[in-house]
């Protein structure tokens, strides 16, 4: 089971934090701090795996990916495969990239709810739901269409449908 998904920037500011089991806010902050401390002390060109037992309880592992200014972090237990989780991060990022065209940190910050929508289509209740970014995009687009319809009055949403039409 996946226990948490974190996205934070290289200065340790959380950009997205989703815990699949409830944790009080203070504990969440502590974990985010600890994860950041571990990640920024890792040298370059080493493995993407870290043992997360010391801050996330027994049998917790962590897989991360460092892309430009962001760390994408998945924390999970022994019932998942580390390499597969690495690919799941890939799916997540690929989907973000399709959705936001050259996704950058700002997209992540400003499209908070959309990030969650995408993540919810990939991971559901801590289990892997969908691994095809095309399928995820389809589902997200369907929701975005409603967004576009309801907010056409005064906003130009940066949804997929709008850039496809350009």
């Amino acid at each position, binding site marked *: 089971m996946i226990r948490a998904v974190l996205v934070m920037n*290289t200065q340790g500011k959380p950009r997205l934090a989703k815990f699949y089991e409830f944790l009080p806010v203070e504990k969440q902050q502590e974990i985010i701090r600890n994860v950041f401390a571990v990640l920024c002390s890792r040298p370059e060109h080493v493995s993407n795996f870290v043992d997360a037992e010391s801050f996330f309880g027994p049998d917790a592992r962590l897989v991360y990916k460092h892309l430009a200014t962001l760390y994408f972090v998945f924390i999970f237990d022994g019932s998942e495969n580390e390499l597969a989780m690495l690919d799941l991060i890939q799916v997540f990022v690929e989907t973000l990239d399709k959705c936001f065209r050259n996704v950058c940190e700002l997209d992540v910050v*400003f499209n908070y709810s959309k990030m969650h929508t995408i993540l919810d289509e990939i991971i559901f209740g801590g289990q892997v739901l969908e691994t095809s970014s095309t399928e995820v995009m389809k589902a997200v687009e369907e929701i975005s269409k409603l967004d576009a319809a309801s907010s056409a009055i005064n906003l130009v949403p940066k949804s997929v449908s709008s850039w496809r039409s350009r």
Partner: protein
Amino acid sequence: MGSQGGFGQSKEFLDLIKSIGEARSKAEEDRIVIREIETLKRRISEPDIPKRKMKEYIIRLLYVEMLGHDASFGYIHAVKMTHDDNLLSKRTGYLAVTLFLNDDHDLIILIVNTIQKDLKSDNYLVVCAALNAVCRLINEETIPAVLPLIVELLSHGKEAVRKKAVMALHSFYRKSPSSVSHLVSNFRKRLCDNDPGVMGATLCPLFDLINDDPNPYKDLVVSFVSILKQVAEHRLPKSYDYHQMPAPFVQIKLLKILALLGSGDKPSSEHMYTVIGDIIRKGDSSSNIGNAILYESIRTVSSIHSNAKLLEAAADVIAKFLKSDSHNLKYMGIDALGRLIKLSPLIAEQHQLAVIDCLEDPDDTLKRKTFELLYKMTKSSNVEVIVDRMIEYMISISDDHYKTYIASRCVELAEQFAPSNHWFIQTMNKVFEHAGDLVNIKVAHNLMRLIAEGFGEDDDAAYSQLRSSAVESYLRIIGEPKLPSVFLQVICWVLGEYGTADGKHSASYITGKLCDMAEAYSNDEIVKAYAITALTKIYAFEIAAGRKVDMLSECQSLVEELLASHSTDLQQRAYELQAVIGLDARAVEAILPHDASCEDIEVDKNLSFLNGYIQQSIESGAMPYISENERSGMVNTSNFRSHDQQESGQHGLRFEAYEVPKAPVPSKVTPVSLSSTTDLVPVPESLYARETQQISSVGLASDTGSSELKLRLDGVQKKWGKPTYSSPASSSNSTSQNPVNGVTKVDVATTINSKARDSYDSRKQQNEIDPEKQKLAASLFGGSTKTERRTSTSSKGPKASAADRPQDSKAASVPNKASGEKTNQVQQPPPQDLLDLGEPTVTAAPPAVDPFMQLEGLLDSSNSSAVTNSGGAVANAPDIMGLYRGTTSSEQSGGGGYNPASGDNLNLLSELSNAAAVRGTTGATIVSPLSPSVKGANAKDSLEKDAKVRQMGVTPTSQNPNLFRDLLG
């Protein structure tokens, strides 16, 4: 766009994020967020907020809480929002409550009703939103309220809904297995769902169910095997492929399930052999996900009833992993090796050098995994090397959690496999010295017992040699600053017991050291207690041996200090010391016999030696003892002195002062048996204190008894007068780590450097191998490298000496590696980083004009680089493609569910680009086959965005916040 900022959010929100991004300190950030909270509090309670605004407020609340601040004032608004008819508001509401609330929060009750309504909705998007909330917010008590609805959804028309319903049921199972136990058949049914996605989702709950009890599911082995076979043979529609792999996550889940079902079950395992063998054989070790499947297969092989052929295949895969340049694969290889080593212990030998490389890798994760492996393969022949390595690593790290863990591992291995007492003591010393505060106190007691008892051999010479070597080592260590308390206790005890035993050191030397210690660690009362008892013993031994005791002045001042200590325990011990010194040799020898710490102590629980005294007292009119039951309701303690307090048998308050207790008259019975308890170390402190108290009151003559009272009052006065020892005792712990930290950093840095140089050297001069490494390998693995030798061409003739063997094996493995690496030494990004675009090669990519031209360009460059490549990686690349073409054509004829029209051309392209990415030469230039067509045209757009990002200054320090600057140039 203008005031809206172009991101679909209001100017306010943009400003907030911008100011947080620019905050220079945590305090500044907190101030901004607190101001934001106040704004939100005010705004959110205004009447008639438009929905759109409200949605944004909720998102801002989420943001505030993500930064660690309390947003509970807004929870109710999030709950309200779930009631909204508008789907987007509803989704936002659900998102907020799932992030805000625990499943036992009071507000949940307000949501359950909405969830029920939404689960019945006609709009499947509403249903999906509700299902999402169900997973997080429904707890054991509320499961019955939604369970029937969820079961109904299992046969919903939309596969997305069925999938999520299955997973919702799964989440119920995790929260309360009994609540859905009657629905397990539904999972089995869904396994045959005509949508593979739903089938895949069903595997998750089945995995948990089988993990809890595999037996009821043995009948499914055949079905699982056939599903896995079909998936692996590309029978699923193309849309389930991920990077040309058919439904890899489904394959992995299936392999995990098979591992559980086949564990210790030969007939079930036999069903699986073929399909697992096929998967390993056809496995694509060039992509990350392919390796994930291979690794999972190895795990399955190691878990099911073993099969020689599969083990061999698995070993080959492990070899490939370990030889890889990717740290991830090495990690998986080490992990897999650890799993397989139980089944075929010889397998590690062929990889000994790879394992040692991993041990010296700068990557901590890999190192720890390697220690895990070493722990599993420890035997008495290699325990010394392994434990030494572990301790070395333990010293170098500052992570307390792992330090504790590895220290306990060291202790465990040392206790289990120690080749000699001497080594054991040395090892334990090191562990205590560097992680003493983290190890269990029992370990210290075990060590003391070992020094006292030896390993049970009868050789007296060995005994005393062991002890004196322990004493020597402690006298050496004692000078080190900041030793952990537990270790000091051991040192004090050993010095007290055996410091003067071999006659090498004079009593004054040892006592001087002990006093220094008590002074240096004056905050630690336990250490002081151990030290003063050790002093007592040394003086006692001196007196018993008939030598004149000459107390050092510092000892005297220490004793005086402790006599007035506010710790009664320390006081007690100080008085004991004083009392012992005043006695004659014969009495002292009876009280503290030399080398009696291992003698069994006979405790006369009935206190029969007092019988005479009691008889006497009763005869002179004292009340007989009344047992506790008879005195029910009386709080009085059952003290053997209670005959002094007969009056207290009457209830009620006493107003007159207690009389001075009579000094107990010593009985004729000698207290020898009791006295030796002073030396019994493993007894817990409190018990120990109680016993010594008894000794002093019973065993020591009456003069101590009476003087005790007077002097104790003294101590109390001092306590009020001069509070000398009140400083906290914990400070030494935290600071003791600091110097170690400093060393760590330097250490790591240098090892990285030397490592880099090392590997470079070894590539350049293939024949010159680090002799250190060879030695290590030989000591770890026993030096036999049969398998490696077989592969080497140069060393066919049998070599004479065993010492030569490791050299051969290294020579055999190095050319392989070197030939691969030499040619593309420039830069070889690990293949799994397809999206990691931070490589220098990126800039070489031409700015996009025509997306297809560009794609061709990419393919060209990768082709040409492939030509320059040599070694194993390229050799199998055409193979893969050939294999792939074979499968595609076979699928066409088989009429699989994919579109043949779009087929060959596009497919081939993607395939080629993938193969190129796989070769890892220009991994950075290829994001995914479809991105060029999208991105190339939008270069200008992206640049604009980049400019805006910079202007926003969310991350002022970063050079280029774009994640995907690949095609921009």
